[in-house]
């Protein structure tokens, strides 16, 4: 049986223009890495948007896996700008192999 350990997976939806704010926060929390995936469109309280890369109004999903304490550090660090920057954050427990890498 391989050994798995529990880590937090955090996903943050952010405007492409603001991604560096998010990844800098991840770096500050001393998390080992992050991955960015594209987003196509969405609807929130502000109504519908489409990805409009020419206009720079598209969004992306930043995902990062980290131990609980660093994850909470990141969440706390980023909480104050969630509303002003229109970010969306969710996190949950995942099992990973090679836990020492995260």
């Amino acid at each position: 049986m391989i050994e798995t350990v529990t880590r937090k997976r955090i996903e943050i939806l952010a405007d492409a223009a603001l991604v560096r704010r998010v990844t800098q926060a991840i770096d500050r929390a001393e998390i080992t890495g992050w991955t960015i995936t594209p987003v196509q469109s969405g609807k929130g309280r502000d109504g519908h948007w489409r990805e409009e890369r020419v206009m720079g109004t598209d969004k992306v999903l930043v995902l990062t896996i980290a131990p609980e304490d660093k994850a909470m550090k990141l969440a706390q660090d980023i909480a104050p700008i969630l509303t002003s920057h229109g970010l969306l954050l969710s996190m949950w427990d995942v099992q990973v192999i090679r836990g020492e890498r995260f």
Partner: protein
Amino acid sequence: MDAAALQTFTSPVVLFFVLGILAAFARSDLAIPEAIAKGMSLYLMAAIGLKGGVAVSESGFDLTVAAALGAGIAAGFILPIFAFWLIRGFGRLDRINAGAVAAHYGSISVVTFVTAVEILEFQGKPSGGYMVAVMATMESPAILAGLLLARGFGSDEGQSMREMLHEVFFNSSVVLLLGAFAIGLVGGADGFADVSPFFEAGFKGVLCLFLLDMGLIAARRIMDSRAVTWRLATIAIVLPLVNGVIGTVLGTMVGLDVGSSAALGVLCASASYIAVPAAMRLALPEADPGIYLTMSLSITFPFNVLINIGLISAFASMIAGMGGG
């Protein structure tokens, strides 16, 4: 006022824009992939930059060029102030949003400029190649001005200010426009001959498809939009009218020819919807893109392409005639 103002409507470039608007209103699913749209906008900027550089490599830099550059930069700093005042007063927006909108109207729209250059050429009033350089230098000052208006002088956090200044000077359209301009300048007409089948022959066709896309996006945005009041919509029409007059008069006063004066007018009248929104998300994330994008892209941009370019062109001819009398 001559018939020029109406002539615009038979140009295929404008007709494709109208097609895009109509298709969006009919809720057609017609859409151009983002990568293609981005590619077309890079192509258009490279082409217009090259063309301007080649033109200047032939005519040379002179006092007129310097005057045009000065007029452009001055306009970039001053126009946002007037816009800010109007938007806060008549438009009833808060400081942050008003600053963001002002930055958009002080800056320029490359596509509006390109469309105007085509239309002016079509009407026999070509503008100088150096106007491309004027355009590139006009992109950024208004971003600074708008930011100062929104935040005041002292309040800025240093880091985001530095990021912002970098964005302002090395933003992709400034780099590509000025870079291609420099390449055109260095290579001259000879170097350009090599690549002109690609950059010149394809230009109007690409512009057609790009405007088709812009029509779709502009119209879809206004259909979804809720944030723009009638006051703001009015401003999105009044500002390009007033700024267009200011720019054209300024151009004529500093001694530009009719086409170049009209082009300066169009630059002043146009509002950015590509470079500035990206900068504003970074520098003023609290400002609502639903306001500034809808105003600049969905109201001012179509108004300029469909009506105001024609008006400005006619006005430039008129005051040039008066000066000549």
